[in-house]
């Protein structure tokens, strides 16, 4: 119950925040671009042709644009913005003077970040579906005439979500440690760009915690056979979260 109340209070803090806007805008950005492209060219999902399920083709096209750069960058920004909110507003002392256990505060913050990432996925999928449906209704006067592979999309979303976890955990760690907002953002962007250069050029690129999103799309079959990026994501997530917690709980100045 205490954790639930803490989550509710943490969630309230994200209202009207830059991270909340980033979540909405970031989630809808690529689907809207696709929608505009379809409308501008008077195309619908039907133009993808006969090969394979047109929804699946659309799904991977939209996600490909997202997971390569925008999603990891969004995660870097949003996690830093939410975590740094306490430093920016000088509110750590207020938060730590409330009757909440330290591990509850830590968990509530991290759960809210995970929740916002989930919210982003929701907006993105909603945008993806609408970007398929709206042009079909406009130009074909009918819904796409193929089965919607709901289960496959759910699994794929789950897998992409897993690849986000190491980034979230590492950014959370850096944002808790450093007062200066530029540190988590700077470190995140530098590591992300370096990872994008490494992916495809270096066989050990999978060692970077930022690589798993891009690898889902760009990973060579040989590399993907050798490693399981989802397990690696979970391992990094657990390691980074444990380090963050140890750092947070042993901090001698709590505000």
């Amino acid at each position: 119950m205490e954790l639930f109340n803490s989550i509710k209070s943490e969630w309230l803090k994200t209202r009207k925040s830059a991270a909340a806007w980033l979540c909405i805008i970031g989630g809808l950005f690529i689907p809207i671009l696709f929608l505009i492209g379809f409308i501008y060219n008077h195309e619908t999902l039907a133009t993808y042709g006969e090969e394979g399920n047109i929804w699946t083709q659309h799904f991977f096209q939209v996600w490909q644009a997202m997971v390569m750069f925008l999603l990891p960058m969004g995660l870097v920004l949003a996690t830093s913005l939410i975590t740094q909110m306490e430093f920016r507003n000088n509110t750590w002392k207020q938060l730590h003077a409330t009757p909440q256990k330290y591990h509850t505060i830590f968990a509530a913050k991290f759960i809210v970040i995970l929740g916002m990432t989930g919210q982003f996925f929701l907006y993105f999928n909603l945008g993806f579906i609408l970007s398929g449906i709206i042009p079909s209704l406009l130009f074909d006067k009918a819904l796409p005439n193929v089965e919607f592979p709901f289960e496959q999309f759910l699994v794929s979303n789950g897998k992409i979500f897993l690849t986000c976890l190491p980034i979230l955990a590492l950014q959370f760690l850096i944002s808790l440690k450093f007062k200066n907002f530029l540190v988590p953002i700077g470190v995140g962007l530098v590591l992300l760009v370096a990872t994008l250069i490494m992916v495809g050029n270096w066989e050990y690129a999978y060692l970077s915690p930022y690589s798993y999103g891009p690898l889902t799309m760009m990973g060579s079959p040989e590399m993907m056979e050798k490693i399981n990026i989802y397990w690696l994501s979970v391992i990094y997530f657990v390691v980074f979260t444990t380090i963050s917690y140890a750092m947070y709980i042993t901090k001698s100045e709590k505000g």
Partner: protein
Amino acid sequence: MNCITTENLTHHFNKNEMVLDDINLRVPQGSIYGFLGPNGAGKTTTLRLILGLLKKQSGAISIFNKPFAANRIDILKKTGSLIEAPSLYAHLSAQENLAILQKIYQCKKSRIAEVLQIVGLSDTGKKSAGKFSLGMKQRLSIAMAIMHEPELLILDEPTNGLDPNGIIEMRELLKQLNKEKGMTILVSSHLLAEIEKMVTHVGIINKGKIIFQGTMDDLHAAQQESSFISFETGNIELTNNVLIQNGLHAVINGSRLTIPMINKEKIAAINEQLVQQQIKVYQISTVKNDLESIFIDLVK
């Protein structure tokens, strides 16, 4: 009974710099305790230690007669605080800032409107706290501190940024909370004049050490002790001889002689002796140190 007790509280920021040295605070239940000291004396560090915001290095802290570390949650449920600059979420309105605490303390939603009314911020509507003046931010911080009707209120320089009217309002509010709700209030300040009209007890800290602790009456007694008598006469030397005969050591200050405070009968007797020796007595006056000068003397 004491609401807050610290025993031999000592704190270093590094090996050479001792910030607090053997602090033994005694904040009685139901009191308004003024914690005074110049900037950098160690007030905020003491308050941060009391609230668990700084890791204690040595000494003991008890609040409501319970050791703080082992009872942190129970103690904080009954404690409201404002430490240094206001702690507010700038992108949220006053109401939303209070709603965050309402979720944690699980108090009634109607309490939000109540505390906004108490601090005079009912009309701020959707305006975000970031756009508030410093005085409004300070008042919202007080609202946040009293949201859950705490038994103990710890306020670090709550009048910072307030105009004279705001200071008077704050003083009245704290007196009212103390009287009507029985709240024990520990309030720090670097200005004695600002809190002397409100507090029942005073602790003065300087360079990390408590140099005075007691009731306001104790401080007034100290004020009495530090007062002196000034003589202005026609003959300084003869007057000095009379004072020496009476066992008093005088300090010559221009055309005046000053001696430590003595009782009225003795003043009258000395005056009689001076007149008998045909020394013209122009003025005998009592010079009282105001509390502010005592404070300044103590922290020198």
